[in-house]
């Protein structure tokens, strides 16, 4: 997890296998980049009031990061622009040396998601989707975009999903984990209905500002608690999705959990099975055990990689989750980037390796190896 400061040259890493990277963060270098896609009214809104989230600070995150923008210090292109803002540099630093054949774009803050003003949120998400399509995916066929939706408004989100359906630039819908209410609740169902209808998986990426404390007992003091706390948020929202029955209601729905680790998933499923059985009188809409719903409907990205002292414990976790549900991700250009050559400290069989590093994603996103 140390910050990498050494620039690797293109082609330097010859031992790699081709990978699918399920979490790449392209970054808007300057707000002007969005002007072609954003109505004048919203350009002015942004210039005048900025992006207003459900927290105090207009110019940065609620918890200051460990380094600027949580980026690797070497991810800044020679031009001095923000990490992740320059396609050419991303190719040279990441896509080529790591042989990324499929990269899923997950733009983060400010992406329009979580803006307090719902109309602005919707307009900004739409602009960001155009920006991903024209500035990234259509210029670089290895990169695929996520449909950003203003998720607090279910109807507007569903409309945006249907607008992008069938466009080969887009391979999934993206939500953030810190929503205003748990993501299984019915205000979000139009999102799942539209995604299932359009055959797009729904990815939930850690982060965002829902306005409620990131613990059930109030606001913690430190970024280290926020970062590690995303796993708890993801446990709670996945609980909500299962217990509310969205997988019963939308049987074609596929959910991808991104950037909150993964080793918490098996114990969560065990806990859900046990107590759901005891309390099932409350949820007659559920026909199957929670663990079965999760096994059938949930994929999970591996970054940040779990690092038990004894690496064989990592194998236990992979087995308990299911090898066909693991998706490798680097989180480029963020500081806690997982290097595909070093992140996994256990020996994988060729099948395990191929599935985890490529085939699972290829199948999920319908993108066979080129």
């Amino acid at each position, binding site marked *: *997890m*140390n910050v990498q400061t050494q620039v690797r040259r293109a082609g330097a890493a010859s031992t790699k296998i081709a990978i699918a990277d399920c979490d790449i963060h392209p970054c808007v270098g300057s707000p002007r980049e969005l002007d072609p896609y954003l109505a004048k009214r919203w350009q002015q809104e942004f210039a005048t009031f900025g992006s207003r989230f459900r927290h105090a600070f207009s110019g940065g995150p609620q918890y200051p990061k*460990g380094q600027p923008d949580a980026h690797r210090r070497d991810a800044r292109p020679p031009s001095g622009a923000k990490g992740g803002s320059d396609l050419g540099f991303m190719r040279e630093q990441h896509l080529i040396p790591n042989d990324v054949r499929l990269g899923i774009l997950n733009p983060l803050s400010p992406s329009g998601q979580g803006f307090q003003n719902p109309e602005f949120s919707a307009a900004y998400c739409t602009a960001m989707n155009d920006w991903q399509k024209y500035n990234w995916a259509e210029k670089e066929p290895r990169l695929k975009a996520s449909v950003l939706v203003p998720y607090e408004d279910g109807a507007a989100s569903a409309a945006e999903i249907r607008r992008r359906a069938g466009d080969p630039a887009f391979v999934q819908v993206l939500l953030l*984990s*810190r*929503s*205003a*209410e*748990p993501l*299984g609740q019915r205000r979000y169902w139009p999102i799942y209905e539209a995604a299932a209808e359009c055959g797009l998986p729904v990815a939930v990426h850690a982060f965002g500002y*829902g306005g*409620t*404390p*990131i*613990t*059930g*007992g*109030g*606001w*913690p*003091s*430190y*970024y*280290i*608690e926020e*970062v*590690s*706390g995303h*796993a*708890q*948020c993801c*446990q*709670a*929202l996945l*609980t*909500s999705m299962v*217990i*509310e029955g969205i997988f019963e209601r939308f049987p074609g729905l596929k959910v991808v959990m991104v950037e909150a*680790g993964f*080793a*918490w998933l*098996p*114990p*969560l499923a*065990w*806990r859900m099975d*046990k*107590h*759901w059985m*005891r*309390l099932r009188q*409350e*949820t007659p809409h559920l026909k199957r055990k929670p663990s079965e719903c999760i096994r059938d409907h949930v994929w999970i990205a591996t970054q940040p990689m*779990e*690092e*038990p*002292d004894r690496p064989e*414990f990592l194998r*236990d976790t992979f087995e*308990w989750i299911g090898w066909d549900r693991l998706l490798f991700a680097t989180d480029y250009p963020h500081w806690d980037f997982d290097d595909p050559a070093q992140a996994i400290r256990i020996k994988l069989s060729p099948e395990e390796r191929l599935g985890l590093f490529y085939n699972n994603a290829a199948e999920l996103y319908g993108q066979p190896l080129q």
Partner: protein
Amino acid sequence: MAEPYRGCVDCDIHPSVPSIKALLPYMPDFWHDTVVQRGIKALDTISYPQNAPISGRPDWRVEGRKTASSVEDVQQQLLDAWGADYAICNPLYGVQALLNVDMGAAFAQAVNDWLVKEWLDRDERLRASIVIPMQAPDLAVEEINRCAKDPRFVQVLMLVNGEMPLGRRFYWPIYATAERHGLPVGIHAGSSYHHPVTPVGWPSYYTEDYLAQSQAFQSQLASLICEGVFTKYPALHVVLMESGFTWLPSFLWRLDKVWRGLRMEVPWVHALPSEIVRKNVRLTLQPIDAPPTAEQLNRVMDQLESDRLLLFSTDYPHWHFDGTAAMPEGLSPELARRILVDNPRATYSRLGGQA
């Protein structure tokens, strides 16, 4: 008598306040009158709805009275039947949820005095945790000092979800006082409900509320470690109760890893979080959120990387197992003995060390 349990210490049982009337004799006039004149009917919280299956095992429910509300029921159903040396009473009553902190302090005092008189005085195997108004640490300290004089109080009781994360220095007077008396701080599942019970807002179902407790324990344990509570109070022991424990290994991998990457933010945390937990933190056994097979559960036990962490509990009268199947199958006799006897006695110094 259930042989494997003879001589054990049951570290989490829940005597129930039968009704608010039971507390009135233990309240000063002002609060007695307040309860009567303002029509305060009960402080039972939504954490354990009385009729919910999890709140009372069917064969431990008795027609005509609240579950676990009489010492005779506890004697017959648990103490005599299981042959425990001790059982630690953790009353769950909505004291910690009151927004009026003086009222919270008055109820805490009443519950503690009621517990001494109606429970501890009536069975010498019973021990208790000190109920405190955790929403007002100054008043909590007074209550700890008052009750600690009675050696049958072996622990300070807090709920996992309160006003703010439990590591915040707001709570430090409580930890200083507990450490000074040699009392562990027991943190039990439950909430003041002053914030949404999940980190992503209010859930729809009770099932989610109960499931969310283990996430709350993860966050609060991170808070205790990151704020430096165990650096400041190195002799303090914290016991997580009704927390589940199968989440602990993956939680520690995660926290160790982010600590390595971000320790510059919390320079007072001098050791790996996992080392701090193995030294200062214990967890009660039930509920066991177990994987499908005994072999897998044994693997989780290996992943804990310590045989000192777990303390036996039935969580009586909560319903997590049937009959006397409180201990998981397939444990080595050595580990079983640690969980049942040695670990509890090592944690609660007031029980008198080794059996």
